[in-house]
Structures are given as structure tokens and as C-alpha cells.
């Protein structure tokens, strides 16, 4: 089934203007890709490789220096594009940031979830309905009237996700949203993100440092020094662990283990990212090796 690209980037470049002492920093360099509607894409890359810069470009917070950017089929780099067009595009793409604290505006959970809808000028009764439903969907209904300050990091990120749901956005970018969370909070946010993608068909772009999270995606884009280094399914991208290590990145622990076993002469597949699958594969390989003797 051919789906429309919700995001299409062609030769995007972007530099941060340098100040009096420093030269401009080229953060994105000739980046081209397409994101299909309803897909789940992970973006990997070491610190400073331009992931956040790309995310900000996609949210229209920053504008590319050159190249073309289409959101939902609309060319936003067209010289005639108006502020209204940009605002309209911004409606469709949401972002959940790394620091859960610095994206919550109101001191009551439900008011914060409503913030985006209020900005869109949606009638009060409709906002109420959407907020209640969004809180239900992320499992935070019983905290609707509490202060975000007293919630855990994972809960705060779920509030941010509820804000995205309430705005009925088509695409959401998670910019290292799990980086500051404990393992439980991380699991929480990942589950919510997966559900968003699988059940509601929302396009998810997940920027992360955790290979286990990236392995859950349909597709992985690896960035390095502002360029796209690799682009493919998790099996493809992780099939060459040496290349990933050279780029200063990791592979999932299962892949690393399987790779080491393969180097030791065991005949195993590399593209298994679930611990149980990995264990089964190793057991099978060992049995085969014994049986072969």
C-alpha cells in the first residue's frame, strides 16, 4: 500500500549563526528523506549530530537555509508561503522534548493539556471533551487536577503526549523524551508512543540514544555530522555493527551478543532485538553446532 509522505525533505541545510568569536555552525548538511504517514521512524546519532536541529526544522521553529521542506504536501520553503500556512503546518506536527519540566506551561495538569487547543481557538466544550479523552488515553485521568510539579518524569511526559493527542496532531516527534527518565518512566513513555502509532495511526519520529527503543521502529535514520549516514529497517541498520561503532554509536545488546557469537564461529542471525528471541536463537545455534559434530 502506497502512503503519502507526511514529511518530505530535499537537500536541507541549516547553520546556526556564529557570534563575534565563533564561526557559524553547519548543523545540517544536505539532508533528504521522506516520512510516510502512519510510520514509526527512529533517528539515531551521537550528541551534536544535528538531530534536534532537524526536529526543530520539521516543527517550523527554525527555517532551513536552503533545500525544500514539504509538510503534508505543502511546500513550506516556498518564498510565497505565509505565516498562516506555517501556523497551519505547525498544527499537524507536535514535539515532546527531553526535559519534561520545561514544556509544561500551566500549574494544573488538565490546563496544560488544554493549552495547545486553547491556542488553536477551539470552543471550550470541545476542548473539555478532547482533554478528558486525551488524559484517559495516556492513563492520567486521576491526576487531572494535580500539579505537574508533583508528578514523576514519565508522568510529565505522558501529560505532554496528552497535549499532542488533544490537538489531534498527525505527527509527533519525541526528541530524546526518555533520556531523563528512570527505566519505568521510559517504558511508560515508549508504550504510550507505540500505542499512539499502532492504534491511532499517528506518525511517530523517535529521536533516541537507546538502541533497544530504536529497534522497535519500522525504520531507522542514522545521523552523523549533520548528514544522513544510514537509512533502513532496524535489521538493515544493525546488520553491520562495526559501521555503527565507527560512527560512535551502539547496536542493541542482543545484536552485539549475537555478533560476538558469530565472530566466535557460531552461525546466528543478527537481527533479533527481543531478549527471548535472542536466547532461543543462541540455543538453536548451539544445538545445531553440537548436532553437527
Amino acid at each position, binding site marked *: 500500500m502506497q502512503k503519502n509522505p507526511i514529511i518530505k525533505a530535499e537537500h536541507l541545510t541549516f547553520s546556526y549563526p556564529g557570534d563575534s568569536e565563533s564561526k557559524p555552525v553547519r548543523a545540517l548538511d544536505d539532508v533528504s528523506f521522506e516520512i510516510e504517514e502512519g510510520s514509526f521512524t527512529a533517528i539515531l546519532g551521537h550528541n551534536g549530530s544535528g538531530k534536534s536541529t532537524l526536529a526543530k526544522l520539521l516543527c517550523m521553529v527554525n527555517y532551513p537555509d536552503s533545500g525544500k521542506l514539504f509538510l503534508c504536501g505543502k511546500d513550506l520553503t516556498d518564498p510565497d508561503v505565509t505565516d498562516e500556512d506555517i501556523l497551519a503546518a*505547525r498544527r499537524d506536527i507536535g514535539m515532546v522534548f527531553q526535559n519534561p519540566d*520545561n514544556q509544561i506551561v500551566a500549574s494544573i495538569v488538565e490546563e496544560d493539556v488544554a*493549552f495547545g487547543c486553547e491556542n488553536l481557538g477551539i470552543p471550550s466544550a470541545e476542548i473539555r471533551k478532547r482533554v478528558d479523552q486525551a488524559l484517559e488515553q495516556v492513563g492520567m485521568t486521576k491526576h487531572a487536577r494535580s500539579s505537574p510539579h508533583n508528578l514523576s518524569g514519565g508522568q510529565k511526559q505522558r501529560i505532554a503526549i496528552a*497535549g499532542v493527542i488533544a490537538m489531534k496532531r498527525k505527527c509527533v516527534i519525541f526528541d530524546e523524551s526518555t533520556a531523563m527518565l528512570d527505566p519505568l518512566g521510559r517504558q511508560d513513555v515508549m508504550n504510550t508512543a507505540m500505542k499512539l502509532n499502532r492504534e491511532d495511526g499517528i506518525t511517530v519520529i523517535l529521536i533516541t540514544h537507546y538502541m533497544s527503543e530504536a529497534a522497535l521502529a519500522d525504520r531507522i535514520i542514522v545521523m552523523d555530522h549533520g548528514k544522513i549516514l544510514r537509512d533502513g529497517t532496524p535489521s538493515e541498520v544493525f546488520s553491520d555493527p562495526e559501521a555503527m561503532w565507527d560512527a560512535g554509536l551502539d547496536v542493541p545488546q542482543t545484536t552485539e551478543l549475537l555478533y560476538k557469537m558469530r565472530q566466535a564461529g557460531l552461525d546466528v542471525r543478527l537481527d533479533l532485538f527481543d531478549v527471548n528471541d535472542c536466547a532461543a536463537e543462541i540455543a538453536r545455534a548451539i544445538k545445531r553446532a553440537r548436532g553437527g559434530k
Partner: protein
Amino acid sequence: MKADITFGQYCEGNSLIHRLDPRMKIVLSILYIVAIFLAKGVTSFALLILSAVLLVGLTGLSPAMILRGMRPLLFIIVFTAVINIFWMTGDVLLVQLGPVKIYLEGIINAILIVVRIVLLIVATSVFLTYTTTPLALTDGLEQLLSPLKKLHVPVHEFSMMMTIALRFIPTLIDETQKIMNAQKARGADFSTGSLLQRAKALIPILIPLFISAFRRADELATAMECRCYTGGEGRTRMNVLRSTAKDWLFLLAILLLGTAIVLLNTYFPLYGLTL
């Protein structure tokens, strides 16, 4: 560790007064304060005290707690009372100790002034600080002042600033605590030494705090922009403030109270306040 602070002194509750429209509560407290300043005679003050007792009863808060809230102002209360007792002259001399003369008028005046101050505090606590969350107060103020937007007064911007400040105060308090602990672990000493030394010891706390606050502000601005915030224009609210019959009843009651006070002042003042 979470700093669990309530700003001002808001007390959770579900009383009739808690549920009043915050806009009306702001108006009511202003009118009540006007009424307090209109009162001159003993009778009108008696009426005010009666109404204050009734109001405190309606909030369901313990009167002891409201009285305790006055402790910071105790000095001012005692000071005004003493000045009135010793400096007021009148017709009925009660005590004379050398040059010090105490008149009946002085004592009555002192009592009435103390009552006036206490009533002022009770009025603001009952209508505003104890029964209205700061957020509701901000919303109420924004909507009350919204006609000023036509005069280009940035009402929405101020209210947004207040909302964000209320949101981030606990976060920044937590952060201050963390930075202080980090500096203490490095041997900083905040509790001994001269005032100047202690003030200087705060610099290593303030600088990281400011840097982090600026970074937060930057990230928050980006996040708000991503959520389509473009200022107050065209914005709707989820919770619309609504005045109901009970709000208007309260307004009527306060207006009646004011009228009664004016009438009592003119026709039945008993002892008049001269100040």
C-alpha cells in the same frame, strides 16, 4: 525531594465561597474593603464584625487559622492601638498619670482601628488568599481587566507571565535546594559569618540558578511555539469563568451591607471614629 509549598495560603475546600467566580470574589473583596472604610460608628463596626463572622463561617475554615495568619501584622496592630490610646484627646478623661492622659475616646478609637485592620485582613483572606487558587485569581484578574486590552494594556501577557511564574516557582525552589546541597558538598558555608559573608556565599547559588532559569525559559519558549502559541489573540479557554445566581446574590448582600453602614453612620453612630 519535592518542595511542597502552597503559594499564599490557599486552603483546599469546597465551600460556597470557594466555588464563587474568582472575578466576583475580586470585586466583592474590593467592595467589602470600601465598606470597612466607610464604617465610622460603633454600630456599623458591630454590623461588619457580624458579617465577617458569617463569612468566615461560610468558608468552613477554622477561625483560629485565620487569626494565626494575622501574626505577622501583630506589631502594626499593637502600635496603632498604643498611639491612639495615648495621643487621642477627648471629653471624658479616664486616667491621668503625670503628663499622660488617657481618654475614653482614645480607647474606643484604638479598639475601632484594631477592628478595622483585623476586618481588612479577614476580608482579603476570606475572599482571596484562603479560598482562591493563585491560578484562578490570575484568570479572574485577566478577564476583569480585559476591557483594558482596547487601550493596548498587555493584560494577556501579564496573566501568562503570572501563570508561568506560578508553574515554575516550585521547580526553581527545588533547583535552589539542589544547588545549595551541591555547594555544601563542596564545603560552602551559608549559615555562619557576617551578613556580608553570608550574602557573598549566595553568589555561587544565584549564578547557576540564573543560567538554568534562562535555559528553561528558552526551551519553554520553543515548546510554546510548537504548541501554536501566538499570543492572546484568537485564544479560547477550556474553563470559562461563569457568574451564577449565587455570585450576584453575594454582590447584592455586600451592597446592602454598604448601604446599612452608611445609614448607621448617619442616624445611629453611637461613638464616632475620628481618623
